[in-house]
């Protein structure tokens, strides 16, 4: 965390719960998540040079109660594209 604010453990519990419940509901075990992640990287890597180190996959609860899967995929540099 770049802002120096210590989160209370009650808030940590709430956030952890929200995430674990949405992954429970999606029926997605950690192994399947890992597999999905690798397949997505594989596809994207065909076209773009991605930074596999900084990759991030997570479930997020929206304020309206809906869930979404967020993928943050840092790009190293576009393949074959001319630099300006």
């Amino acid at each position, binding site marked *: 965390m770049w802002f120096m604010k210590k989160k209370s453990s009650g808030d940590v519990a709430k956030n952890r719960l929200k995430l674990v419940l949405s992954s429970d509901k999606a029926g997605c075990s950690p192994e399947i998540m890992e597999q999905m992640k690798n397949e997505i990287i594989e596809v994207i890597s065909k076209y773009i040079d991605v930074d596999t180190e900084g990759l991030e996959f997570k479930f997020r609860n929206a304020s309206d*109660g809906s869930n979404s899967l967020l993928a943050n995929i840092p790009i190293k540099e576009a393949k074959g594209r001319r630099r300006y």
Partner: protein
Amino acid sequence: MGEVIVVTSGKGGVGKTTTTANVGTGLAKLDKKVVLIDTDIGLRNLDVVMGLENRIVYNLVDVVEGNCRIKQALIKDKRYNNLYLLPSAQTRDKSAVTPEQMKVLCDELKNEFDYIIVDCPAGIEQGFKNAIAGADRALVVTTPEVSAVRDADRIIGLLEANEMKKIDLIVNRLRVDLVKSGDMMSSSDVEEILAINLIGVVPDDENIVVSTNQGEPLVGSDAKAGIAYMNICKRIMGEDVPFMDLTAKKGFFSKLFGKKN
């Protein structure tokens, strides 16, 4: 025609049996005719919490197997003559009863009693299926901990899949001091995550330990948990009772000037 209420939680040790004993006794105090059913076959507990362990002759399995009539197995409470217990069997296992048998039993008891409170075992297997089979509504008990809330969420999903008509939430064993310091989820946090109606918040109270030791439910006493349980009973009966001020997140001024509790 009575109403069948199942008390369930998924996780063990969050206070299902204590809740069953106190809600049942509270409803009896409010002049309702009540029977409590312990469906935790093999791990009988409600009898000791009610202080009726010495009076058991027949049990739930005897009733469904036809070894006795229902009335023979019902134990009258020590203090309230409109309160009864149908104890569980200690030497059998969950498969001794089927959901169909439970439904028949609950339907029969509905003719006699205003409320039939079913104490559900922990878990989501046969015992859970038996306990919810004849129920009209459910009380889901949880504590403000990640493990208990996660299991409660699973239970709510299963109750909804089984078309339970009414599902209410009880947040048990809330530590007001920890909620204030930010180290425990508040009842509204839990309510927000589970997204069902909150029917009661029971504070962590050492009087519960004493009352369980003595086998006398403390509902209706002036202990905080006793008041909380009585409020739950009134809400079950449809009364609109305001929540005790236990967990309200205090604003700046009330923090400065508010009473300490």
